[in-house]
């Protein structure tokens, strides 16, 4: 929670500075992006174990890909409703809640849609925290995990463990883990079109 405050403070400070002074930082933005992607790669390389995911069974493997597909379909509908070009809308949606990656990746091409990618995915995370405890009264607990997207391995994991139980925690972790491995490839892929 405290880190979320730091994140929002950084964003607001940056917007204020950019709005009032328009400073030029050269390619520092890109350097930071590549550094972050590189660090994410190291983290994935150290932790990703395909065998452990297989042990959990069919649903744990299928669910993340269903989440990604559903997210993209939702993004398609949102793009049509809001009149946003599909390239941006699908990239925003493919972020699956990972705002800190999606926003900067899209911002390489468009500052406006980068900010939308950031805020839309941050809103998804906040909605998940608010809606998951209510949703599991009507939806199976392990299926409702899909609403959290890639965040279910870290920021929304506590809420799912608390309300869904420890058996849901493992599925939620693997769900978020698989999406965390997939999203850094899918969003840039969509942006190439």
């Amino acid at each position: 929670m405290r880190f979320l405050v730091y994140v929002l403070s950084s964003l607001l400070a940056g917007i204020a500075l950019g709005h009032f002074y328009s400073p030029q930082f050269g390619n520092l933005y890109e350097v930071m992006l590549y550094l972050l992607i590189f660090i994410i790669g190291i983290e994935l390389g150290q932790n990703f174990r395909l065998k452990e995911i297989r042990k959990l069974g069919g649903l744990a493997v299928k669910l993340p890909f269903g989440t990604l597909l559903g997210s993209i379909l939702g993004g398609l509908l949102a793009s049509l409703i809001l009149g946003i070009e599909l390239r941006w809308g699908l990239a925003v949606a493919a972020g699956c809640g990972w705002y800190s990656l999606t926003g900067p990746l899209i911002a390489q091409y468009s500052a406006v849609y980068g900010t939308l990618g950031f805020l839309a995915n941050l809103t998804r995370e906040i909605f998940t925290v608010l809606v998951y405890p209510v949703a599991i009264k009507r939806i199976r607990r392990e299926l409702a995990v899909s609403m959290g997207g890639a965040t279910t391995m870290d920021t929304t994991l506590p809420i799912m463990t608390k309300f869904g139980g420890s058996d849901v925690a493992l599925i939620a972790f693997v769900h978020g883990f698989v999406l965390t491995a997939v999203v850094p490839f899918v969003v840039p892929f969509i942006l190439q079109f």
Partner: protein
Amino acid sequence: MNIFIPLLAGLLIGYLLRKKGRRVKVDLPMSAALLFLIFFMGVEAGKVRINAFWLLVSSIVFAALTIAGSVGIALLMGGRR
């Protein structure tokens, strides 16, 4: 530079570190890089005129529909189990 190059380089280094039984803690550098990145993203966003209301409404629509889409597909998959 293509985004996949640092990602694959990181994956390879992380994998090699794991194979050697060494582990590097990346939490702190990741948090620092992330905060700088978001700050610079804010700077770029601040330079252009953005309709705040449009941004708010669009964010809510995207969040709601991506959640609905994901849960919808999950229900279809869960029903066939």
